[in-house]
């Protein structure tokens, strides 16, 4: 396999396996990634040790270039790492928006100095990033954003407000869209980076319908961004933002992971909560039909992810199919939550307390939280606009993107 650069795939697998055995703390086996939790506790010593070990190897970002701290590996080798982590019950401790969205974008658009400054910190998991895009008046119409950046020679002074800033309360740095020209819409936006640890930045978590606060309001009052942290040309931020959103949607659709959500299958849940008839079929025939329909949708989604991957082999970066995957994947995930709730009946509606199993409490929170899937990262409707205009060539009378 050329992917292994002439090397032996089994030798590489052995190397990874031995390294994981030597470095993965046994107490973390089978535990979820602490970064995936919405309310984060201070990481344990073992969690920190695992993050540092993986970060030092660059194996949390295995395909990123080695000169910036990535693994410098092929996608085949990356799969081996993923498989071996999975085999050992180990999570990838390097993640978040830096890995999913910002890193790939900076690798494409950043200067050499910017890459050398920021990418290694992402690869080691030393710096967490948040995304300053949406504003109260700029949601689906993102380019209507008004947060202003004033040119002060070697730096910008930023004033304004962002909203739905995921994980802002845990973030060290922000990649942010700011207005640097008020006479134009899309061509007046710049893409800047600045630290969240400064007096001009205030973060207020927003409590959502699911009860937790994964998002924040973020206020900037004379916050400062250094000029060297302007990515791309002044007033040229929109192009970069669109590219970043493609990476975001690719991640949100579950396209990379095949749409898996973990947990038990709907069929298993239905057997337990609804029961089966004498022939072993789910006892409620109406529900059974909808479960099988959902399974069929999920399989065809996975088949499409595989097909898109094979078709784009040789090309790099997300394809136009990414937009289709976001709508298809998020609708499927929301339907899974709806069916889970329905299958569990009243047991699936518990809010808290010991009358409910953790799995049941998770169902209702997941169902509510999942309503965001078709709103963020380009709403279902925005995705449909993109498909109809960019792919199907239907006319755009509103002239927005």
């Amino acid at each position, binding site marked *: 396999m050329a992917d292994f650069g002439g090397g032996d795939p089994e030798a590489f697998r052995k190397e990874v396996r031995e390294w994981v055995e030597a470095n993965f703390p046994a107490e973390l086996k089978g535990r979820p990634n602490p970064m995936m939790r919405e309310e984060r506790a201070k990481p344990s010593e073992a969690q920190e040790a695992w993050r540092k070990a993986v970060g030092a190897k660059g194996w949390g970002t295995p395909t990123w270039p080695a000169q910036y701290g990535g693994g410098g590996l092929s996608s085949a080798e990356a799969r081996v790492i993923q498989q071996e982590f999975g085999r050992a019950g180990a999570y990838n401790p390097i993640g978040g928006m830096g890995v999913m969205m910002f890193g790939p974008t900076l690798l494409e658009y950043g200067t050499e100095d910017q890459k050398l400054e920021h990418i290694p910190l992402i690869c080691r998991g030393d710096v967490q990033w948040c995304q300053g895009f949406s504003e109260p008046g700029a949601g689906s119409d993102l380019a209507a954003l008004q947060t202003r950046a004033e040119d002060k020679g070697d730096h910008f002074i930023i004033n304004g407000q962002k909203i739905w800033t995921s994980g802002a309360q845990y973030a060290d740095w922000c990649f942010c869209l700011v207005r640097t020209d008020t006479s134009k819409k899309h061509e007046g936006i710049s893409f800047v980076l600045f630290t969240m640890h400064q007096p001009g930045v205030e973060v207020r978590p927003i409590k959502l319908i699911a009860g937790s606060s994964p998002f924040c309001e973020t206020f900037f009052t004379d916050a400062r961004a250094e000029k060297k942290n302007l990515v791309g040309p002044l007033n040229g931020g929109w192009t970069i933002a669109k590219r970043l959103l493609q990476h975001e949607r690719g991640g949100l659709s579950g396209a990379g992971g095949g749409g898996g959500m973990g947990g038990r299958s709907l069929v298993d849940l239905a057997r337990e909560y609804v029961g089966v008839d004498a022939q072993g079929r789910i006892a409620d025939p109406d529900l*059974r039909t909808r*479960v099988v329909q959902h399974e*069929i949708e999920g399989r*065809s989604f996975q088949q*499409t992810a595989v097909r898109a991957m*094979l078709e784009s082999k040789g090309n790099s970066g997300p394809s136009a199919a990414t937009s289709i995957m976001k709508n*298809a994947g998020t609708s499927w995930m929301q339907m899974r939550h709806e069916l889970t709730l329905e299958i569990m009946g009243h047991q699936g509606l518990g809010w808290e307390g010991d009358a409910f199993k953790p799995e049941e409490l998770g169902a209702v929170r997941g169902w509510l939280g999942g309503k965001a899937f078709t709103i963020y990262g380009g709403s279902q409707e925005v995705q*449909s606009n993109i498909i109809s205009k960019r792919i199907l060539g239907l006319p*755009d009378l509103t002239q927005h993107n």
Partner: protein
Amino acid sequence: MAVLNEEQSMLRDAAKSWTQEKSPVTAFRKMRDSGVEIGYDAKAWNEMAEMGWAGVIIPEEYGGSAFGYLSMGLILEELGRTLTASPLIASGVGAASALVLGGSDAQKSEWLPRIADGSVVGALAVDEGAHHAPEKVALTAAKSGAGYSLSGTKTFVIEGLAANLLVVSARTSGKPGDKDGITLFLVPADAKGVSRKRLALADSRGAANITFDKVEVGADAVLGAADKGWDILEKTLDRVRAALAAEMLGAANQAFETTLDYLKVRVQFGQVIGSFQALQHRAAKMFTDLELARSAVEAALQAIDADSPDVPELVSLSKAKMGDVFHLVSNEMVQMHGGIGMTDAHDAGFYLKRARAAEAAFGSQSYHRDRYARINGY
């Protein structure tokens, strides 16, 4: 589109240029208007056979090219685009697969070369009611001398009127609904006691009800083993379903593209109707579903070529998903064309009618959803 090898690309290109030049939708309209009873243009079928399409899944030693089912699907997708009527699925996939899977050397030598060159048209006579239910076989095959005597009726036999060779499922033991006790027979359509009644269906394709009145056949007419026909039958049906889904994929994509073209030219309220978001979002939904369906259709065909154990579930997935999507797209084709879509002069009605006939053939969406669930143990 699946990643194709060189011969598959050539096959697809040949099918595309032949259908566009020789068999556009106007050819289907002409065939329908001519009232030809067999439901396809025999001259066009000869041309297809000359290009080797009837032998795509037949081994080379029996006159075929053995290119496989994905290759056959590529041809059918192009035929589906222009609604080209032909016995390719019934004969080149149905009868051919049954013989390849279960035929003796003598049976293969007798029939496959003639199926491959198009001189014999085969058809599957499997259903006996209004719904696809291949295990509900009541037609009996009673021992008679050294052979059998077949009595009963088969319904909605696709290409049943044109066929020279019928692959008939008959009951040799048990009762309707049992999978054991089904035996497959090769019966020449001109055998004594076979009578055929043409069915004029909405999609104008060839179909017939066929009655067997004490039809005598020898023991050598049995395909596979007596009482043990189910396995061959189910495998054959899965190949036919996967192939039909490929034809449906082509037809649905063409229906969508024709509709999309119309959205870009039809002007109302001073603007093309494709600028209205209500229609744009429905177009985006159709495009998304068509992409998902393509993946399912291609995966089923590839699984057959790989002789993968999950062929049955992937085929049911493919036929169910493709049926839903063709259903949606054919309805939207008429709706988005408005009044012109209701006229016989427009092609939209052809796609709508073909959609429902193809959905019902060899198992509707509800049949295949149920089957998918049963295969997966729920």
